[in-house]
């Protein structure tokens, strides 16, 4: 069973629908026991880091997540979930779950493209991934594939070898992070058409 963690951080129905569409049993849950019993975990989220982290702690799910991580359970972070697994977020100056070393930073309000034109924030829409290393969950990815992003903050892992994919938006940032049994995307695979569904499918099969 795949547990999709519900911690009052946005609407998780689209993640559940995509996984169901692919034919995998899943449960949207905030029950610590279900999280601990899961064979794989999807950790999504939309919203602000501060309130998400507060809610995660209140539910006790932060401890369950750590436990699953230590036991080698495959974990997929999505969007805010990918930020929450880092150590610290500049958003609301929030200490986060700390599964992956690094910080979550805000895009500069003066972000500009190569021609000097000011870029809009949040980074919202379709963008590409430049693969930095092979990863089973990214198998089948084509350089021209694009993914749907909506975010004003981005993860900045401490160690370059934890960066699986990078994306350009004024700067280059880590859009896919891989560390042991964690794979985490800043974009929304559940809203990224076939390339996104392929990534979810790969995750549902990933064995370490």
């Amino acid at each position, binding site marked *: 069973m795949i547990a999709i963690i519900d911690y009052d951080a946005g609407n998780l129905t*689209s993640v559940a629908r995509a996984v169901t569409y692919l034919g995998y049993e899943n449960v949207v849950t905030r029950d610590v026991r279900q999280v601990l019993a899961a064979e794989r975990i999807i950790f999504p989220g939309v919203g602000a880091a501060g309130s998400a982290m507060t809610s995660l702690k209140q539910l006790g799910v932060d401890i369950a997540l750590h436990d699953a991580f230590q036991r080698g359970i495959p974990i997929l972070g999505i969007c805010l979930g990918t930020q929450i697994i880092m150590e610290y977020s500049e958003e609301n100056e929030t200490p986060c779950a700390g599964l992956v070393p690094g910080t979550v930073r805000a895009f500069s309000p003066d972000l500009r*493209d190569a021609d000097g034109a000011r870029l809009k924030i949040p*980074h*919202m829409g*379709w963008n590409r991934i430049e693969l930095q290393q092979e990863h089973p969950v990214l198998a089948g990815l084509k350089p021209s594939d694009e993914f749907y992003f909506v975010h004003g903050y981005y993860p900045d892992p401490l160690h370059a070898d934890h960066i699986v994919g990078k994306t350009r938006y004024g700067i280059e940032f880590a859009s896919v992070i891989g560390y042991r049994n964690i794979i985490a995307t800043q974009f929304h695979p559940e809203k990224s058409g*076939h390339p*996104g569904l392929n990534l979810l499918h790969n995750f549902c099969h990933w064995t370490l």
Partner: protein
Amino acid sequence: MLSKRIIPCLDVRNGKTTKGVQFKGNVDIGDPVEMARFYYENGADEIVFYDITASSDKRDIMIDVVRRVAETIFIPFSVGGGIRTVEDMRAVLLAGAEKISVNSAAILNPDLISQGARAFGNQCVVLGMDVKFVGKRPEIPSGYEMVINGGRRPMGIDALEWAQRAESLGAGEICLNSIDADGTQDGYEISLTSLISSNVSIPVIASGGAGKPEHLLDVLTRGHADAALVASMVHYGAYSISEIKSFLHSHGVKVRNTW
């Protein structure tokens, strides 16, 4: 870099799409779910549904459409029309839409924007704007005025001022419809789109007037739009989304061209 988005817009009344669509093959042209699937498979970057159901007691029909669309397509989609309260927003978002769009209800009650943004995040709240050119005068310094009821009712509010105010209230995106260009298929209102897009820091979707791919090229370059809405030009089979994208790509506009 971000791709420019091409977004088909579907009008839905009582759970059925209203425009006669000439699809080849076996697509049920009255079914919004089938049409959404068709556009999804053809490379649409997002889909906008506009619920024009007149009576509020039939809202549940639209919620059911939203739920079925969400089970079928895996790209973002938004729903507008008839959304007047945070509870209306919640129902649509929980059914599976990414975004809700508010238009006249936000003009009459601007707090709706901030309430929605607080409850669901700015990225969920799209401000729909219907705008008419009236010429510059003291209360309309940009020359563009907000209108409601399909353009019949002028509101005495300057379009640029309203766009900037909505952004500060928490709108995450603007869908900018020119009443003058709407339905003409003669091209988007470039100066209006450029004016609004250059003076807000949230994305602007241009709407109204699309008739051929050159119009999209124009509004996505000279008009500085982040995305372009298309309706009749794709609904009646004159162009496909993938054809439009090939055209834009060959003219140097970055679009998503694999899906």
